[in-house]
């Protein structure tokens, strides 16, 4: 369970987040809706630990993690532009976190093919990142984040920038992935219908 309590954040006198509070129950998905520039991405970065809030708390499973550094939080984050590692291939990207956890090679291999299955990209192990389409990149980024079984998954505009056909396909698949993995998820979007399609609850920022 994720709890965000009275979080404030300002950049140089510009108050971006003002007393934001919400809860996401275990395994549920919350969509944060709002126009661009309303601080949605900032909020995700605060939950991930990439930014420090001016005040307020972040709790996961009733433990205050506000001061825990990013790499010890076990929070997955998929950036809007995916940020796949360009010097590694698909399986190198997906197993990055598993390597850090000390998984051996055969276990990593099994897990990678399981995840590729989950995102409907079987057999993509040895593809180069530069050869992937926008939709494929998004799926790989999703698989990479899910590899380490994060307690909370954060998605920043997961369906923005894809053409209509890919958009609809990925929407269906993303919904299935979120349902199957049973991961507590916060996603940020500016699209109302997308939000209601994917999430059980919607929080609107102004």
């Amino acid at each position, binding site marked *: 369970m994720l709890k965000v309590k009275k979080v404030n954040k300002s950049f140089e006198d510009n108050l971006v987040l003002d007393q934001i509070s919400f809860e996401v129950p275990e395994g549920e998905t919350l969509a944060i809706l709002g126009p661009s520039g309303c601080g949605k991405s900032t909020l995700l970065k605060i939950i*991930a*630990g*990439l930014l420090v809030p001016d005040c307020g708390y972040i709790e996961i499973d009733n433990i205050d993690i506000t001061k825990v*550094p*990013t*790499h*010890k*939080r*076990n*929070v*997955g*984050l998929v*950036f809007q*532009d995916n*940020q796949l*590692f*360009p*010097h590694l291939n698909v399986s190198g990207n997906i197993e*990055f*976190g598993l390597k*850090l*956890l000390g998984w051996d090679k055969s276990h990593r291999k099994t897990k990678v093919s399981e995840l590729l299955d989950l995102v409907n990209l079987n057999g993509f192990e040895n593809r180069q990142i*530069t050869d992937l389409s926008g939709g494929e990149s998004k799926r790989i980024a999703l698989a*990479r*984040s899910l*590899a*380490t079984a*994060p307690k909370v998954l954060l998605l920043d505009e997961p369906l923005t920038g894809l053409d209509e056909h890919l958009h609809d396909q990925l929407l269906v698949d993303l919904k299935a992935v979120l349902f199957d993995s049973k991961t507590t998820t916060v996603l940020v979007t500016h699209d109302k219908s997308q939000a209601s399609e994917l999430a059980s609850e919607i929080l609107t920022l102004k």
Partner: protein
Amino acid sequence: MDRYLDANSSTLDVEGLNRISRKVRIVSLFAPIGFLTLFFLFPIIKLFSKVIQLENIFSVLSDDETFRIFLFTFSQALISTIASLIFGIMPAIALSRYEFKGRRALSALVLVPFMLPTVVVASAFVALLPKDLHHTTFAVVIVHVFFNVAVVVRIVGLALSQIPRELEQSAQTLGASPASSFFHITFRLLTPAFISSSAIIFLFTFTSFGVIKIIGGPQNSTLEVEVARNALVLGDISKAAAISILQLIFLTICITIAFYISKKKSIHLSSNDIVRQPVLTPKEKVYIRSVTCLTVLTIATPIVALVTSSFRLGNTWSIYAWKNMSSSQIRPGITTGVDPLSSIGISFKFALLAVAITLVIAFLAAIAIYINGFAGKIVELGFALPLATSAVTLGFGMLITFAFSPINWRGQWWIIPIGHSIIAIPFVIRTLLLKLRMRPHTWVDAASTLGASPLKSLWSIDILRMKRPLVMGAAIAAAISFGEFGATTFLTRTESESMPIAIANLMGQTGNIPRAQGFMLASILAIVTGTVIFFIEVKDA
């Protein structure tokens, strides 16, 4: 300055230029090719012909003394390269990742040492370092690092600014600590930049000459110094030529391998807008402040020491050197053989002619490259060759080439500025081509619909826009000419020494007066080149 280190030149659409008549295009190639052939290719070929017998090569290869010198040259270059990378990475990160007050000034400042004359910097470190560190490998490496941190900041910094911070952040959300995510992601993506900057620094430091002459001392000789010693002192031209050629071959192999690996390791990054982030956390503030302070101190200290030393005579303060600028006498009857004041005049004379020649040839070459297709590419490549040739090799080649009639020119003073312009032309061509190739091609369309002939539009669109880059080119040529030492050493004549030659000469003598005069003259040269560099940086910004 930017043009010095930028490796890529973008070719934009030059449609419309192919309508310029064939005759004009071919004629445009004459002057640049003629100049390059006579003053560069010919001397290099002459150098090769001096070692045409293989036994010369073998005798050098089996010579223990030469091998010992090779080992020193190689190891000091390697240590200098690694040290430059280590000291360069901190300012590179600060300047490419963060936006802070004074960043632009700092990044201009970091590049200054790279453009200062070798003899000035070496003299400055003679003034700064305690006596027992002179003539040590340590001193040589320190001076080389001082020069080459600029290369790292420029090349690694540019690569670093193109790597999105979010990649490291992604790694952190996957469980990598900040240090480990830097190492696993950013560091790996910087590999090609590390390799290419290493290659350039290795090339510079392997062929180091002025620095070694002044601060290296007799026991720390590089191959370049050995070439000069054999050619000018011992008169063994064939041995000197053999060393030169072997060095050229060795370096060509090294550089080729380096660029091959760098190309193979290069990774295409999709994001290319540079986003510098503000300095937020206290840790970052400390980091930026210490980098700024250290950089300013490191660059200022040797220069201050240099100027201060010019006011010392032995252990006392004295304005002797500044008061007796045209005196070569130490005591009645004993002379240094160098007249500092007249060397200033000679340097200005050299620089003036070097600038004129450079501008004319570089301008003609740039136009010829621009309007010719394949032939232009060949000319461009030809004019890049001097970049890879050490100044000593060039000067040596010119010395043995222009020794017979009808081209017995080595005694003529103007052969020296020609040598300087050979070194400067590649840089100036780049500056000019950069501007030419940024031709907005809607202008061409507009001009031709208005009835302009192709030549007319070349004149009105391209050539008239060349004023700024030509001024820039003049400054670059002047900076190079004022500081040039390696080639000049071979072509100089007594009683008409340029400033760098006079400085090296004075610094090589014992006694308080020549020392003080050497520091004085180096201070003046530092001020002159410093002014030119400042001008370049301001123009460039």
